[in-house]
């Protein structure tokens, strides 16, 4: 069992979190899911940047 902690968020933020929540999803789960999604988005953006901007060379050409 992971230990818990308390963070201070505004009522507005809490409402926003609730908005993103799914059926009976805890705040902890909502935040975790959003963070994971954001992480993937960030990684995908980085990968796409490589795809778009980097020059790729074929191993056959090396």
């Amino acid at each position: 069992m992971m230990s818990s902690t308390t963070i201070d968020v505004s009522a507005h933020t809490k409402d926003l979190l609730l908005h993103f929540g799914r059926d009976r999803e805890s705040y902890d789960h909502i935040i975790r899911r959003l963070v994971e999604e954001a992480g993937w988005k960030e990684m995908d953006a980085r990968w796409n940047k490589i795809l778009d901007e980097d020059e790729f060379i074929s191993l056959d050409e090396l």
Partner: protein
Amino acid sequence: MPDGIKYLMKMSLFLLMNCDVFCSGFPDFPEAIPFLAKYIARTNQKCAKGTGNKSRSGADIKPLKNTNPLKYRLRVGEYRIIYVVKDDAVPVIDVFKRGKGYTRYSNMVILIIDLLKHSHCAFIHIPISHFHNGLYMIYPPSTASSASYSQVITSRLLHPNSLPAFSNAVISLSLISSRFDA
């Protein structure tokens, strides 16, 4: 002498040709041994069976659902390789080690690419940025590909200063074993 050069001098080479493995010691890279042994055993097994499966090598490949265009994650031992499939090419975007998460782009130690799944692909591309800083030793495809199995091994040495995330020079070995002739 830069650490990278020292490392190059120490580094071990892997030659995987026709399913036979030739390697020298791994004085500074012990983690590579079980990893490669496992991989090579698997490859040998497939070769021994004379697999006719041209569509998939049995590699652990997972589409990354949250990516656009769709990327794939190939798992080889502790390493994760990210690539996309674009027409007849497979750009390899990223390689990292498990546990370092998907956020440690530069933490590449070994690059092993097994793209048998995409055996129809004519080319496998890797970002040139992976080659900007360092020294390379590149082995041409095995000409003794009696099993219609051509492989390329490249190894790359990165300078420790080339990427801030590196504390030591690292070797990256690329193994391309992608083409089964039709």
